[in-house]
């Protein structure tokens, strides 16, 4: 059970510890625990596969979100060009647009 001990006192202590701990009764698992352990393969039939699929689906979701972001950005840009208010590009040169007065401008 143990590696060879050089010291005689240590050997004696080791034998004593062996005797002392042999007095401890092993703790048997309850029937409920045995049933819980037995159910593990059924409850987690493809644990590793699920993990891989989850990781892959997370990556797919990230890619989809990035693509959606690009598309949404494009749509926002499109939306800005179709606003009823004139864009900065449509304003006459030197127009002070800090006062917000857009009246009199051609649509």
């Amino acid at each position: 059970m143990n590696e060879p001990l050089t010291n005689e006192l240590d050997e004696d202590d080791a034998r004593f510890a062996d005797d002392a701990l042999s007095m401890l009764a092993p703790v048997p698992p309850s029937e409920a625990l045995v049933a819980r352990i037995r159910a593990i393969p059924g409850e987690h039939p493809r644990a590793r596969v699920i993990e891989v699929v989850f990781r892959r689906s997370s990556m797919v979701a990230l890619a989809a979100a990035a693509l959606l972001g690009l598309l949404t950005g494009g749509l926002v840009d499109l939306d800005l060009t179709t606003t009823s208010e004139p864009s900065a590009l449509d304003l006459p040169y030197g127009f002070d647009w800090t006062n917000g007065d857009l009246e009199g401008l051609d649509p």
Partner: protein
Amino acid sequence: MSDALEADRKLLARVSSGDQAAFAELSSKHLGAIVTYATRLTKSRSDAEDVAQETFLRAWQNAHRYEARSPAVAWLLTIAHNAAIDRLRKKPLASLEVDDARDRAPDSTKPSELLEKKDERARVEAALDALPERQKEALLLTHEQGLRPPEVAEILGVTVEAVESLLSRGRRALRQALSEKSP
């Protein structure tokens, strides 16, 4: 590789391929050792059973990681040790209860012998509990679970020399405590 290690390697290889019969064999072989060790560490039967369940769930999910450097029971005890330590760290100190006396296998049918053994067992348990955690763990893994110092070192995450030192100090302290308390 020894025959026992080779047998463990084959068994865990079957488990990693999803063989439920192999998993049942693994659990029926080692569940008792895991529950016993977890009970000694957590001092709670229900916590120990949760630790055991977590241990075998992790074993089922990670059987491909077993490298057959040590026996399967040592690998399982490593998982159980870490799960029990995690649980103890998360648990408030006040909620730690000693309820591990339930559901023990009876040692004797004679009341006098039973009482005597219970008394002896209680003294050993008390002496063990009075030791520093690392010494107690090293003693339990060596003298109760029958592991060798290199296997204990791997479980405790220390060197073999450190395990030998823990064992030497732990054994001496245990002997001293039990001698002092002897009637």
